């Protein structure tokens, strides 16, 4: 496939699984429904060689419905291109499927996204805090988390 860009093959093949596709800053973007996530990512990995899972994070669009947007990034070490997959989930049930079965590295990244934004990953058995600590209440990267709210583990000394 000399000369052809890798996206030329991926985009039409997977467009039926997406609500919308676009190219932003050289990254192919799939905006999808949450239900299509596993089917899309499995084909990205098995058929199109996106073998490296870069990250999963979330965006809190406070005031919009659905409130959260979950964003995944994948990289192809063969074609040296990136793909972004994003989907919207509601505040009442911020649940998406876990990618642990496809990418082992998703295990830790989903833990971080879970503690920071409160996104639940169905299929990840271990969603303990990874950067925060046990007993931390709330999700600090949500826009409605009070900016200077502290949850100290050591009781503060009395002011002198």
């Amino acid at each position: 496939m000399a000369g052809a860009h890798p996206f030329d093959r991926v985009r039409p093949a997977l467009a039926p699984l997406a609500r919308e596709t676009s190219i932003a800053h050289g990254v192919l973007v799939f905006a999808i429904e949450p239900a299509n996530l596993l089917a899309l990512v499995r084909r990205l990995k098995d058929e199109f060689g996106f073998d490296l899972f870069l990250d999963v994070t979330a965006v809190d669009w406070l005031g919009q419905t659905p409130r959260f947007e979950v964003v995944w990034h994948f990289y192809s070490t063969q074609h040296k291109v990136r793909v972004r997959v994003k989907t919207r989930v509601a505040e009442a049930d911020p649940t998406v499927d876990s990618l642990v079965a496809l990418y082992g590295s998703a295990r830790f990244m989903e833990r971080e996204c879970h503690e920071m934004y409160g996104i639940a990953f169905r299929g990840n058995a271990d969603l303990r805090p990874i950067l925060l600590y046990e007993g931390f209440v709330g999700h600090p990267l949500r826009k409605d988390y009070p900016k200077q709210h502290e949850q100290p583990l050591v009781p503060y000394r009395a002011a002198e």
Partner: protein
Amino acid sequence: MKMDRKTIPIAHEKSGAFEFISTKKDELIGWARKFSLFPYPFVTACCAMEFMAVSGTPYDTDRFGAALPRFSPRQSDLLMVVGTITHKQAPILLKVWEQMCEPKWVLAFGACATSGGFYQNYAALPGIDKIIPVDVYVPGCPPRPEMVIDGIMQLQDKIARQRHPILTKDF
């Protein structure tokens, strides 16, 4: 050319002169302690680079007797908290401080240890004095080595002025 040098005899006869000095106990102990600080570097962040600079030869904290880092809190008497302390890290810092034997002093090295610096958020402890007492604050992000040396010298002055009970709380 032969110099006419007066030398102090090594095995001199006891003449009764200069065989006793008188001083105050606290001044003597304070003088000894202020020149034998054994720091424990509790290093968590980028201020470590300045800690290395101030420990190295050009600035040389050994001139103040504070060069030999002890990596056990039980052998050290100066806790240098170098860098940001998070809430998750705070119990560890408290445990290290509790394991140090008296007398002990704490130096807050840099803006983060002093006040949390620009980390006013869910993760960072806004100053280590929220959990342990601090003797000297060295501000700066990071502080220059001269500021750290000034902090050590201020701590030395403080130690020299302190009471130093050695047998009981009254003596």
